[in-house]
């Protein structure tokens, strides 16, 4: 990982910049500025996905034979940095980082042929059906059932926290196909090639931030083809673990986090401290910014070492370490954002936040997104394995190593 050491990468950086400076439409840029979640505003982001696909850059991390770019680690890092620097909306991760790589590893030739092109091109959006009301951190307790019936499964039950299900045309999910034995057994991994099967009902859930990002999905005798199964029946837990590996081994978080800090620094130069003068010149702000900068820097160092194949990359706790570090850093940054926005973070401005609404925010664009981002980011320590569960794993691993 020579990104800070190899000047020869600058030509590549210029090529990337040239495209990113010109290709996005106004709506795409607006969506980027109004991104207050891991999930950027849907329509404009899918449009950007399709533009990147046309340029051949939709899936830098994919192998070339599946449509990847063939870029080096350093090039991918630079692309991500420049993408974030321009506040462009990050592509939705479910297809590119989760389902796609999983199918490359475990999908049948037919599944690959059927699904990879739509993921790559931005035609399809896959929602994730994992959690249930009684199976959150304890995912293995899931009970939504699939009963084999001829060439089909018949699904009954409920999923929740299915992100953007109301916008999705595809769904991947875990279902229970056997209730005997350990609860991790008897789970099956299914792909649904439609989200409008008879008996499926999708209900959006309004979040703390006022936005309908999550959904509940209800299944009432929903008949789906068994051809959507990935891996063997009752072996879905290990399929999910394989997927998790792709999800976590994926892109670096540093460029996104660095960009948030840059936005904070810029906003602080325009903000007035409560005791007068620019906030950026306030010693108390500087100290707290210094601490954030140090934390961001250390996180970058960890990620760059891991990407470089340093021994840290082999630490089995690294996915958990990365999850805890990145989520809690995002939360710290979100708190700092609301602090810099000050009272301008307090107006409720849901309309101004909508892409294309044409409603002007009361304050500046930074203050508009600060509070929704803070609220949305409270979830970062909850989803994808709560940070309590991650700390259990980190500690267990540490004590096992030592024992």
């Amino acid at each position, binding site marked *: 990982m020579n990104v800070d050491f190899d000047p020869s990468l600058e030509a590549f950086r210029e090529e990337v910049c040239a495209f990113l400076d010109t290709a996005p439409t106004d709506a795409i840029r607006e969506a980027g500025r109004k991104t207050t979640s891991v999930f950027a505003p849907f329509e404009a982001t899918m449009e950007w996905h399709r533009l990147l696909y046309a340029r051949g850059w939709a899936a830098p991390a994919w192998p070339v034979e599946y449509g990847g770019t063939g870029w080096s680690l350093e090039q991918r890092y630079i692309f991500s940095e420049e993408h974030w620097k321009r506040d462009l909306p990050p592509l939705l991760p479910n297809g590119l980082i989760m389902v796609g790589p999983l199918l490359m590893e475990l999908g049948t030739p037919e599944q690959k042929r059927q699904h990879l092109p739509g993921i790559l091109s931005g035609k399809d959006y896959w929602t994730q059906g994992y*959690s249930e009301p*009684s199976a*959150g*951190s*304890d995912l293995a*307790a899931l009970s939504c059932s699939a009963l084999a019936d001829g060439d089909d499964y018949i699904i009954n039950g409920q999923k*929740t*926290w299915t992100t953007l299900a109301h916008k999705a045309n595809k769904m991947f999910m875990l279902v229970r196909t056997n209730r005997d034995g350990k609860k991790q057994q008897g789970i099956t991994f299914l792909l649904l090639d439609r989200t409008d099967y008879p008996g499926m009902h999708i209900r959006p*859930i*309004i*979040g*703390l931030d*006022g936005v309908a990002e*999550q959904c509940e999905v209800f299944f009432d005798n929903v008949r789906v083809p068994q051809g959507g199964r990935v891996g063997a029946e009752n072996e879905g837990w290990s399929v999910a673990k394989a997927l998790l590996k792709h999800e976590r081994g994926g892109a670096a978080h540093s460029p996104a986090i660095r960009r948030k800090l840059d936005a904070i620094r810029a906003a602080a130069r325009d*903000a*007035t*401290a*409560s*005791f*007068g003068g620019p906030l950026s010149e306030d010693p*108390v702000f500087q100290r707290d910014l210094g601490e954030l900068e140090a934390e961001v820097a250390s996180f970058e160092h960890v990620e760059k070492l891991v990407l470089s194949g340093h021994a840290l990359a082999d630490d089995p706790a690294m996915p958990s370490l990365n999850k805890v570090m990145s989520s809690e850093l995002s939360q710290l940054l979100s708190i700092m954002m*609301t*602090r810099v926005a*000050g*009272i*301008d*973070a*307090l*107006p*409720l*401005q849901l309309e101004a936040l909508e892409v294309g609404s044409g409603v002007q925010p*009361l304050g500046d664009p930074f203050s508009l997104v600060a*509070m929704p981002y803070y*609220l949305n980011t*409270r*979830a970062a*320590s*909850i*989803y994808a394995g*709560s940070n*309590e569960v991650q*700390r259990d794993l980190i500690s267990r691993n540490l004590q096992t190593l030592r024992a």
Partner: protein
Amino acid sequence: MNFEFSDEQVMLRDSLSRLLDQRYAFELRRRIMAGQAETGIWSELVDMGIVAMPLPEACGGLGGSASDIVAISELFGRHLVIEPLLPSVILTGRALARFDPAGPVPQWIADIGTGALRGAFAHEEGSGTGASSTLSTKLYEGEAGPRIRGSKKLVLGGGEAGVLLISALSETKAVCLAAVPADAEGIEVRRYRALDGRPVADILLHDVAVDRAAIMAGADAALEALLADARLALAAEAVGAMAVLMATTADFAGTREQFGRPIGSFQAIAHRLADMKIAYVKARASLLYIAALADSGRATSRDISVLKAQVGRLGREIAQGAVQIHGGIGMTDELPVGHYLKHILTIDGLFGNTDYHLREIGRVVAAA
């Protein structure tokens, strides 16, 4: 002296609790805020004497003390009440009662006490209500009498008020308070809601004529008293919200199961609950003690800053803990948890946030 509420305060709180349980339950409140239901709660508050309570007896009020205001405001916080008792009565009404009773002032106070008129206090100018010497709103002598010019932000109840109480500096930089009818020429009001649903407004004052009888010059002490009332009442609301979050989250942790047992039996959750309890005990003790100091005229601005800073910081700790322990459903608009978080964050931003008050405390005590 044991810092408990008096028998009268307990009785009033019991009545108010019953009213709010019936007429301001969470689901009903959501419909009210979405414009899908009406509430006659304001007139009930008038009938119960709560609206008149904070005003001095000489003005037709019940001469409510600081701890009376705390007793009521704490329940408002528990029930997420956003009725305009604070801006209209506790702030504008009580401050007007310190004016010389002349011109329109006595009638305004009387109408505020009956609930017929609403007042709002326009003070914030954008960076969090710092020292009053930094106000940029100007009260100046125009050709036909005094006028006021400036802009105010995030004015609680500013869009519904009939009379606006405005802080400003005179041409000699003296702190003044001036009251004007909200429909006076040159007043431009931009209504919106704050994060927690409170109706607020930005108010632009384009050289608005002010009745000389409705000006208090040399208003430093009055403004400080006003801000102390605001901070005390908001702190009480925050503590009320914290109490609900504590109780709700402890209940939830005791019943929600993951990995085959209640999540509250996991030490990470248990200890976070313990920290929330510690935070709550500190915040509530400071609220009650400082209210007692205020009742006896001994609360200093340091005391008030301690209270405002503690509810800001400890309230955030409790609310963030509550969301985390609730997990996914704590992230939804459908549960009260997030509404309390937003209530607490909004309160923190009003009349000086945690950071401002901590620095103000530090500045004072480092020099003492």
